[in-house]
C-alpha cells in the first residue's frame, strides 16, 4: 500500500473511531440518552473499550493471513489508543457520575468489589500501554522489552471481559460473544506460535 493511501485511510479511520463518542454527545444534546442516561454512557464507553481492544488484538492474526495485509499493523497503535480513550471515558463516568468524586467511597469500592478491582487492573494495563506507545518509548525500552511490555494488551482484554462477566447478574449470559472473540484471537496466536516453533525446528533439522 502506498504511503499516500495509508495517510488517506488514517484520515478516514480516525474520525470513524470518534463516531461512538459523537453519538453519545449528540444524544446528550438532544436528550435521547434514554431513561437511565448514566447507564447508557457507562455501557457505551465500556463496550467500545472492549471492541477497540479486540479489534487491535485482531490485527496481528489477520495480517498473518496474507502478506498483502501487512499494512494493517500501521493502524494498531491508533486503535489501541482509542481503546484507552474510551476506557478513560468509562472510568470518568464511574469517578464522576457513579461516585460523585468521593475518593473515600471509591477506595472502598476498589478494595471490596471484584468487578471494580478487575476494571482498574485492566485500566492500569491500558495506561501503561498508552504511556509507552510512542516511537521514543520503543527506542528507550528496546524492541524486545517493549514487545514484552505490550503483551499487557492481552491482560487488559482478559481483565475487561472478566470485568463484564462480574457485573452482569447471575443467569445473564450476554458477555459470551466478546468472550468467544477474545478466545478465538488468543487461540489464533497460540496456533501460529506452535506452527512457527515447528517450522523453526524443521529448518534446524534440514540444516
Amino acid at each position, binding site marked *: 500500500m502506498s504511503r499516500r493511501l495509508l495517510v488517506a485511510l488514517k484520515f478516514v479511520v480516525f474520525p470513524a473511531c470518534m463516531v461512538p463518542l459523537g453519538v453519545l454527545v449528540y444524544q*446528550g444534546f438532544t*436528550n435521547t*440518552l*434514554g*431513561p*437511565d*442516561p*448514566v*447507564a447508557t*454512557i457507562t455501557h457505551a464507553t465500556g463496550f467500545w473499550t472492549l471492541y477497540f481492544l479486540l479489534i487491535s488484538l485482531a490485527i496481528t492474526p489477520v495480517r498473518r493471513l496474507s502478506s498483502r495485509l501487512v499494512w494493517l499493523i500501521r493502524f494498531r497503535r491508533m486503535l489501541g489508543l482509542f481503546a484507552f480513550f474510551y476506557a478513560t471515558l468509562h472510568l470518568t463516568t464511574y469517578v464522576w*457520575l*457513579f461516585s*460523585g468524586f468521593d475518593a473515600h*467511597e471509591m477506595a*472502598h*469500592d476498589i478494595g*471490596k*468489589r*471484584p*468487578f471494580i478491582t478487575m476494571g482498574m487492573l485492566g485500566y492500569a494495563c491500558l495506561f501503561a500501554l498508552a504511556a509507552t506507545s510512542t516511537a521514543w518509548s520503543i527506542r528507550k525500552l528496546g524492541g524486545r522489552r517493549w514487545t514484552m511490555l505490550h503483551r499487557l494488551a492481552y491482560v487488559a482484554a482478559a481483565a475487561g471481559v472478566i470485568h463484564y462477566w*462480574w*457485573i452482569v*447478574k*447471575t*443467569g*445473564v*449470559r*450476554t458477555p459470551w460473544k466478546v468472550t468467544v472473540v477474545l478466545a478465538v484471537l488468543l487461540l489464533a496466536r497460540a496456533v501460529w506460535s506452535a506452527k512457527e516453533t515447528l517450522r523453526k525446528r524443521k529448518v534446524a533439522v534440514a540444516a
Partner: protein
Amino acid sequence: MPIRKPSDIPSSEITTKSDYMDRRKFMAAAAAVGVAALGADRLENIASPREAVHATEKLATVPSKYSTTGVTPTSFEDITTYNNFYEFGTGKADPSRNAWRLKTSPWSVKVEGEVKSKKEFDIDALMKMHPLEERVYRHRCVEAWSMVIPWIGYSFSEFIKQCEPLSSARYVQFISLENMKEEPWIASVNLDWPYSEGLRMDEAMNPLTLFTFGLYGQTLPNQDGAPVRIVLPWKYGFKSAKSLVKIRFVKRQPRTTWNESAPNEYGFYSNVNPNVDHPRWSQKYERVIGAPFWKARQPTLMFNGYGDQVASMYTGMNLRKNF
C-alpha cells in the same frame, strides 16, 4: 366446539396478519381517544407506536392517604419503556417491545395453601373488590436506580380478608405467570421459573402493600406486570412480583427467585437500605430515571423513605444479617 387440528382450519377463518395489526391499531386508537382526558403530554406517549400496542383502559380512582407527596412522578414513557421483566427479555427496553404477547384476558388468580378453602378470583372481580386508589410511590430498584410511579390499586390486606387464611399461614407467596408461548424468553434466562416472591404475613398485611392493577390513570401496561401485581415501596423492586397467577398462604418462608439464584446478593427481606451494600455496588445513592445525567445521583433513604410505616415490623432484627 372441539379444538381442531390446524390443518382442519380453513385458511379463510384465520385472521390475516394485516387484519390483526389493523385491529390492534384500531384498539390503540380507541384507547388513545379514551385517555385523551389525561392530558396532551400523556396522550402523545400513548399514541406513539411503542405504547400503542399495549391498549389500556382508563380507571376511576379515589385519593389515598398512603400516597407519597412532594415527589414528581417519572414520565409515562420511562415507566413503560424501562423495565426489568425477564420473562420478556433481559434488556430494559425488551419488555416494552415483547410484552404485547402477554394475554391478560381471560385472567384469574388462584389462592391456595393455608386457607379455609381454595379459591379462584377473576380479574374483573378483583378490580371491583375494593375502591381503587391512586398511590404515588417511590420505586427503588436493587440496581441502584429509582422512579416515582402513580400506581392504582388497594391495600393487599383487603384481599387477604377475602382469602380467609388460617392462623397457620405465616408467609404469603406470589407466583407470576410462566407461559413458554407468550414468554419464550424464559428459556434463555437461567432462573428457576415461574418467578416467585414472598412476604412475611405482617408485611403482607401492612397497608402500604399494594395490590396493583394500574398506573397513570389506566390499567397496567403489559410490560409493567399486567393485569395484576404486587407493589412494595419499601423493598427493592424485584420483590414486587408481576402478572400474578397464584397466591399461596404458607407456613414456612417460601422460595424467592433472585434469592435462590444468588443468596449472597438478594436477601429474602430486601428492604431498601443505604447502609447495606449489594456485594457489587453501593446502595447509598440511586440514579433518578429521567433526570439529566449530571444530576441523576441522589441519596437513597432507609426503607426508601417509608420507615414511619414499616420500620416497626423489623424492630430487634439485624438488618445487616436479614438483608
